[in-house]
């Protein structure tokens, strides 16, 4: 169960928690885009992603997001990291500078750039992990679905059932923990009948899984029927006009947060444009007058 706790909502009351979920989603998208704006000059890339990294670390401390969870999910990425390294090292890339050879495997020269490129990607993936964790562990799943519904509202003009989609989403989110509990319960009940979920050959394990999946489906379908009856009994009509208990508000703190994120995004965009269109400026060279390393 531990692996499923990644990014689970942590009920603190920090300023990040109090932000409008719509705003948080928008800010997350802006941050994600700015991370994936590729900058080719290595020192510019290092400085800008470094700034974002520090910014995210500060945000994580402010909003009390668990660093242990982050490390745990990073640990799960090692296969991916290995895979990336292998691909970058062994697939020849003509844009690499042929003079930057780190070492030879047989006659094939492994380029420094390969390590740099794969490191850059992995670093950005970790940043992405941090951003999504920041969003999901500071926002209630229900608030997220409200926000998604709000973003989908313009589509109602095109007869898109945005409310129904949002309701389906929130119900699905609501029932994840319930179904996990149910899974545990059925596993224990079947273990009492001699099922061993951890040992045995392939066929035995498939048999064990069937004894778990069928009861789980039966109870999930039963639950959905009960839920739909309960909703109808309380007068739910997906096409009716509804008022809201929780009204989302865009306040001053939201504006402030948005301006900060916009500044970060703008900085990254500027770096990208300068880097791609005008010249390969080496920022370290620009500031310190030192010679570029490569």
């Amino acid at each position: 169960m531990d692996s499923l706790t990644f990014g689970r909502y942590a009920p603190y009351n920090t300023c990040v928690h109090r932000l409008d979920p719509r705003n948080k989603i928008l800010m997350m998208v802006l941050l994600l885009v700015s991370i994936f704006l590729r900058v080719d000059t290595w020192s510019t890339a290092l400085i800008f992603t470094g700034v974002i990294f520090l910014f995210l670390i500060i945000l994580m401390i402010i909003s009390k997001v668990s660093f242990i969870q982050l490390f745990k999910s990073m640990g799960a990425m090692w296969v991916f990291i290995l895979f990336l390294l292998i691909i970058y090292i062994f697939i020849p890339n003509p844009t690499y500078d042929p003079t930057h050879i780190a070492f030879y495997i047989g006659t094939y020269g492994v380029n420094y750039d390969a390590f740099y490129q794969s490191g850059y990607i992995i670093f950005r993936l970790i940043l992405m992990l941090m951003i999504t964790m920041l969003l999901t562990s500071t926002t209630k799943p229900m608030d997220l679905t409200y926000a998604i519904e709000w973003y989908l509202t313009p589509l109602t003009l095109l007869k898109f059932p945005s409310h129904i989609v949002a309701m389906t989403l929130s119900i699905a989110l609501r029932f994840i923990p319930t179904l996990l509990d149910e899974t545990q319960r059925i596993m224990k009940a079947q273990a009492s009948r001699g099922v061993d979920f951890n040992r045995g050959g392939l066929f035995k394990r498939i048999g064990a899984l069937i004894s778990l999946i069928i009861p789980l489906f039966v109870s999930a379908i039963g639950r959905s029927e009960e839920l739909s009856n309960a909703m109808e009994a309380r007068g739910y009509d997906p096409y009716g006009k509804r008022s809201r208990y929780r009204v989302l508000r865009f306040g001053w703190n939201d504006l402030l947060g948005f301006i900060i994120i916009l500044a970060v995004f703008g900085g990254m965009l500027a770096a990208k444009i300068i880097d791609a269109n005008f010249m390969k400026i080496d920022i370290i060279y620009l500031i310190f007058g030192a010679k570029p390393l490569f």
Partner: protein
Amino acid sequence: MAIQIKNLSYTYLKKTPNEVEALHNVSLEIPENKITAIVGHTGSGKSTLIQTLNGLITPTSGTIEFKDFVITNKEKKNKRIKELRKHISIVFQFPEYQLFEETVEKDVAFGLKNYGFKENEAIEKAHEALAKVGIDESFYKRSPFELSGGEKRRVAIAGILAIDPEVLILDEPTAGLDPVGSKIILDLIFELNKNGKTIILVTHDMDIVLNHADHVIVINDGAIAFEGKPSRLFSDDVSNYSIEIPQLFKFCKLLESHNVKIDIDKIRTIDDLVDQLRSRHG
């Protein structure tokens, strides 16, 4: 063999901010061939206790001994756990959720096949178990999903009975059943006990405790609050354990206070009381 529980503790989500100690230093003995009732309000640790008994959860500290099985806190990799579950089996609350096979007989035989019985042998034993719970031949080839709630529960109990454990643990076996369905299940439990099975019954219903149990254990906040005969429990001050004294017991106490001589320890049902009164007054 009785089950010996020594200094058992169990903590959920250990080493996290949400850690909860469900059982604290519990020591008790569950007598052989008796019906032991475990009572206590919701969240008191009853379910945790029964799950440690057949190794579904590993205790944080302490030991459980039954025959030559010993469960300690290092039991995760014990290969004999599966064997232990053949001797001590649990029927969970709402066991009908564990049904999954195409036919009733196959579902009951499922547990037996897990313990290495051949198909024919398993089906044969399944029929025996089904007969015990009063499910007749016409049900054998039907799908378990089309049965009524009470029938499903009896089939699920048969699924455990077929394994023929010496100790049968039932977690609120009558929850959600109508009076007739409850009576069938309780009579079955009583019958099984007469035939030599040790029964552990988790329940909230004090009438069941008075009618059937030989031994009661009250759990309160993860510790044993009371252990002994039902009549002694109901004579005690039970206001702290959210236990309601059965009407019959209150009535007997009232009779006693009006100088009617009856032996309260032997009264379990209204019939017992009637018999005693009859024999006294001719």
